[in-house]
């Protein structure tokens, strides 16, 4: 086991945690935080797993992919938070009730 594999596994666990809280937590801001954690997990996995064999220089392609991913994530977060603001204006709350389908 290399250090990279450790990080890859942590990435998987972060993805799982994020997904779990995303489904469970009714508060929209928490859902968006959870998505960001999941995203960080995927990014960590993406870089770590490409770097799994010791002795090679790190591969720049996953690095570029993650840079793209981080920018996409902040864009999505901004739109999501904009929607949260709009929903609060209309409904007065930023939670999804739990008894809606799924």
């Amino acid at each position: 086991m290399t250090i990279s594999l450790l990080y890859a596994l942590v990435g998987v666990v972060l993805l799982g945690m994020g997904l779990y809280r995303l489904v469970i937590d009714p508060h929209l801001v928490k859902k968006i935080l959870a998505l960001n954690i999941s995203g960080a997990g995927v990014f960590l996995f993406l870089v770590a797993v490409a770097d799994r064999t010791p002795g090679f220089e790190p591969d720049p392609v996953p690095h570029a992919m993650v840079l793209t991913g981080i920018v996409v994530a902040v864009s999505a977060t901004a739109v999501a938070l904009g929607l949260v603001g709009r929903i609060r204006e209309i409904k007065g709350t930023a939670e999804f009730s739990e008894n809606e389908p799924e």
Partner: protein
Amino acid sequence: MQHSKNTNEVDRTRPIALARKAITALVVMALTGILGWTVWTLPPYSDRMQNLVATHLPISGVENPVTAVLLNFRGYDTLLEIGVLLLAAVGVLSLAPTQVVPAETAPQRIQMLLLRLLPFIVIVAAYLLWVGKYAPGGAFQAGAVLAAGGVLLVTSAVRFNQLTIQSIPISLSIGLLTFLAVALATMIGGGNFLQYPLPWASMLILIIEAAATISIAVILTILFLGRKPDGEYPPKTNGG
């Protein structure tokens, strides 16, 4: 689709919520387990891609492999990514709150301090932009640093002069438009889409990155603010 909720309903949904938690936990654990196991089964890594990047690096126009991938080898991804950023800015502006209570302007002293700080922020950003050719850095990092300056400005409720306000739409899209112009120009010049002629590659990448830095900074500031910045009110002559 029932949105209404009375106390009875809340009580009834409790066991359902618990079951939901349990099922989600199980699914997520299974997913995590399977993915974790998959990592062990991966074949030994080949350094084919590193070699490809390394052999093409001398003809990419830059020396930092990550910048080479971002702006040249996979520049098309970055082009679309700048599109995503701009799109997010348009989306956020369209969701801007209908009525805004303008924040109080920060005291004159703080504003002066900020204005003193700004040149340093700009210098750091310019350095990051320039160094991206050789070492870690580049348009996104530089744009983010510049945006930090923008965030400072808008949180201290500095009023921008009308010229600044009017230039926002253009600075938002200049990154995307410059990138597209270069990409199409290289194609009209007889190459492939986004194929920089080697002697110009370095300069074209720098132009694209400079324009992208401006756009990224303005876009990120707007994403933070969630609406257009306030203009001068009442109009002043010496605005920031």
